[in-house]
């Protein structure tokens, strides 16, 4: 084996330990690729399942975009692929609602929660904190298989008579609570609830594992404040999940009782066909409170891992320390805390007390502060950096762009008075697709491009990566930016054919424009799929540390081995952002390099000294001005 861990004295024993690893664990196909308890394999399982779900969700969006753009045209291929739901080449209205619902559910939960957190928390937490594996590898495996089962149940709802759930991804009662309300409220809704129950179990097992691992299994020297920001982001994300998902579970339990046992938690005074239902005393608003108590933290569960990944990629590829490391941690903490006290901003138009509304408005607008801190820190990190535009870096910068664009419209929607006008219009669709859809998926793609060498030991094709980036970036803006104007005009979301209304007819050409942009964007993803899957087998072999990065995962051998490091786990001496440190030999110093080896670049701050530099004495410290002048002399001599 050609690869050896950098500055790892035990690396010579690598082959030896590796072979024994095989003997010891009796790796069979089943426990290596299927029921694996290895965090790296589980990360790959999450990623590939997430990609498949993302493709399904994307195809759905193209189908309903076609309906929106050409509501009167017949597309015979729809009947071919959808059968009775595309009868006569026209999309069935009920099926349209199902597509919108399942698109939202898949993208929010299956791709950007499980696909993103599941992949990168599993891959990076043990690697970057220096652990052999997760706190409970068995629970980790269960977490993946619950997720897989949830995905199968969710997709299976497309193969039943009445079709999948169609009440929107927020499944508000009474549509979701009365099986007779619409076709999708029957078996489809039951499957949706079953799938989500499995999903919640999966998320909780994953999240509990991530928190326990980060707090208990860091390697020697890896104090909390030496952790890369990726780990901080995954850590806070897991905390959010552990606190928020049980509440969704309670909402779902009460909903199941209402649906199947006839209780009245959410139902009251409902008439179907002129006949009153027996349910009395329930409150549909109660469901919204419970749902959004999860639902709002959920959007941060989606975006925070992407922000963490971006911090790492931007610092690495700017060859600069991240600007404001502690400010980044505190802003993540602030977002985590605030996300639990803003759920009411989804409910401004439910007849909420205006005073309570103003409280929620206040807390909502405060979230702009930590978000802006993060944005400015990204920009300050880029500022005068020695930027390398790898595909991962392009996507990370793309995230910053979307985070700003979408964040600004969040300020509009957070205002209760403006929200009354904009609620349930395309303005909302534009806002959350940009800030949590595009930004989070860009973070995820950035992560895939950046850690692909670590995941598969191969390199992706850069040229295809750039093309993929520009097609995705441009088409995403072309799709979602115009929707703001539609929303300002009052165009309602979720409508099958809103261009039938006289006042919205003028938007038909724009709808066609958006759909064409969406199709181009979707075609761009084929490049990614090709690049991703083909290079697993045919890609160029990756070097051990392709991006000259500081974090611990790049000290492990390219070939995955059980336990990650062949010898001892490396000890950590410094934070992970020593890029372009003045006086250093290279423009990066990995975390496991001790200060005794970097005397020329050490600063008094490295030893916790913040006073007068000239007074500082330490065996591994060399007064800086001397070093610099020596170098300058040498330069002049040359």
């Amino acid at each position, binding site marked *: 084996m050609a690869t050896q861990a950098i500055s790892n004295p*035990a690396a010579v*024993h690598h082959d*030896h*330990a590796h072979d*024994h*690893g095989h003997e*010891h664990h009796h790796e069979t196909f089943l426990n290596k690729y299927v029921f694996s308890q290895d965090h790296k394999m589980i990360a790959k399982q999450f990623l590939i399942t997430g990609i498949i779900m993302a493709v399904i969700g994307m195809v759905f969006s193209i189908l309903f975009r076609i309906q929106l753009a050409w509501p009167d045209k017949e597309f015979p291929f729809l009947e071919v692929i959808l059968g009775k739901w595309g009868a006569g080449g026209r999309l069935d209205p009920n099926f349209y609602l199902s597509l919108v619902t399942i698109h939202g559910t898949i993208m929010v939960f299956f791709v950007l929660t499980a696909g993103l957190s599941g992949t990168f928390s599993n891959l990076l937490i043990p690697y970057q904190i220096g652990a*052999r594996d997760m*706190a*409970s590898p068995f*629970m980790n495996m269960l977490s993946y298989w619950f997720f897989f089962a949830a995905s199968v149940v969710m997709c299976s709802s497309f193969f039943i008579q009445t079709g999948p759930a169609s009440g929107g991804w927020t499944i508000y009662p009474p549509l979701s609570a009365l099986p007779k309300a619409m076709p999708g409220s029957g078996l489809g809704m039951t499957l949706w609830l079953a799938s989500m129950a499995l999903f919640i179990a999966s998320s*909780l097992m994953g*999240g*509990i*594992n991530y*928190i*326990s*691992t980060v*707090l*208990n*299994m860091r390697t020697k020297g890896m104090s909390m404040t030496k952790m890369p920001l990726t780990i901080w982001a995954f850590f806070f994300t897991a905390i959010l999940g*552990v*606190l*928020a*998902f*049980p*509440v969704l*579970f*309670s*909402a779902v*339990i*009460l909903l199941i*009782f209402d649906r199947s*046992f*006839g*209780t*009245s*938690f959410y139902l*009251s005074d409902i008439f179907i066909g002129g006949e009153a239902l027996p349910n*009395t*005393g*329930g*409150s549909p*608003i*109660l469901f919204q*409170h*419970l749902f959004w*108590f999860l639902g709002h933290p959920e959007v941060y569960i989606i975006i925070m891992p992407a922000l963490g990944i971006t911090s790492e990629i931007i610092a690495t590829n700017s060859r600069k320390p991240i600007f404001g490391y502690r400010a980044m941690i505190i802003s993540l903490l602030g977002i985590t805390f605030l996300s639990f006290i803003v759920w009411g901003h989804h409910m401004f138009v439910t007849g909420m007390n205006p005073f309570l509304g103003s409280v929620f408005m206040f807390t909502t607008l405060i979230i702009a502060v930590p978000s802006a801190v993060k944005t400015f820190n990204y920009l300050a990190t880029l500022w005068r950096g020695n930027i390398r535009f790898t595909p991962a870096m392009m996507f990370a910068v793309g995230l910053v762009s979307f985070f700003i664009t979408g964040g600004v419209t969040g300020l509009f929607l957070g205002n209760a008075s403006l929200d009354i006008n904009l609620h349930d219009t395309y303005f909302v669709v534009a806002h959350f697709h940009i800030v949590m859809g595009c930004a989070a998926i860009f973070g995820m793609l950035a992560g895939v491009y950046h850690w692909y060498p670590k995941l598969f030991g191969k390199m992706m094709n850069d040229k295809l990566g750039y093309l993929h980036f520009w097609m995705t970036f441009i088409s995403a803006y072309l799709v979602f930016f115009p929707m703001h104007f539609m929303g300002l005009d009052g165009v309602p979301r979720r409508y099958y054919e809103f261009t039938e209304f006289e006042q919205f007819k003028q938007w038909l050409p724009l709808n066609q424009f958006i759909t064409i942009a969406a199709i181009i964007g979707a075609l761009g993803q084929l490049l990614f799929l090709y690049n991703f899957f083909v290079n697993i087998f045919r890609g160029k072999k990756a070097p051990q540390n392709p991006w000259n990065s500081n974090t611990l995962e790049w000290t492990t051998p390219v070939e995955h081995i059980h*336990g990650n490091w*062949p*010898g*001892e*786990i490396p000890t950590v001496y410094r934070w992970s952002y020593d890029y372009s440190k003045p006086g250093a030999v290279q423009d990066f110093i990995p975390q496991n390099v001790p200060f005794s080896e970097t005397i020329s670049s050490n600063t008094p701050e490295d030893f916790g000294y913040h006073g007068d530099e000239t007074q500082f004495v330490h065996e591994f410290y060399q007064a800086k001005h001397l070093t610099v002048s020596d170098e300058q002399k040498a330069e002049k001599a040359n």
Partner: protein
Amino acid sequence: MSVEAVRMDQEKTKLNVRPKKFILWLFIVTSIMLIGAFTSAYIVRKAEGNWVEFELPKVFMLSTALIVLSSFTMHWAYISGKKLNFGAQKTALWITFALGLGFLGSQWTAWQQLVAQKVFFIGNPSGSFLYVISGAHAMHIIGGLVFLIACLAGVYKNIPQVKNVFRLELASIFWHFIDILWIYLYVFLLLNH
């Protein structure tokens, strides 16, 4: 086995206990959030009116007494196990187990008393909530009983003392949690019905 493999195995056994205990604490956090969601929903729903009042079943007093007593016997089991007094550990675990079953029986009687009062699961949410909350807690008791069975199985199979104490520790953390959880729920119901 090579030196490295041995070292990795040692690292494993050394490290595994603390994170696993922590996992239990995190699971308790999720339980608190679940029950917290139910009780907050109760308050929110009650504030909206149309709320049928009824008497809480008297037998809840008995349930409370049983579960508090079982916490003491659980602690007795833990102390005896730690002191290698396995006979006492077995007795205490069996008593705890019986008290747990007694608690479930008492809750069942409470439900029957509710039905006798014409408070059904289906009907005004004030009654439904009581069933859901006490039912969710009963599920936790069943989980706690599983922990107790694991402890009993361990002590009868004579597993290593480190593991025995570890199981006892997990079981008693969880058992005290469900005890405190019930006291919270009972006080909550007394104050809010």
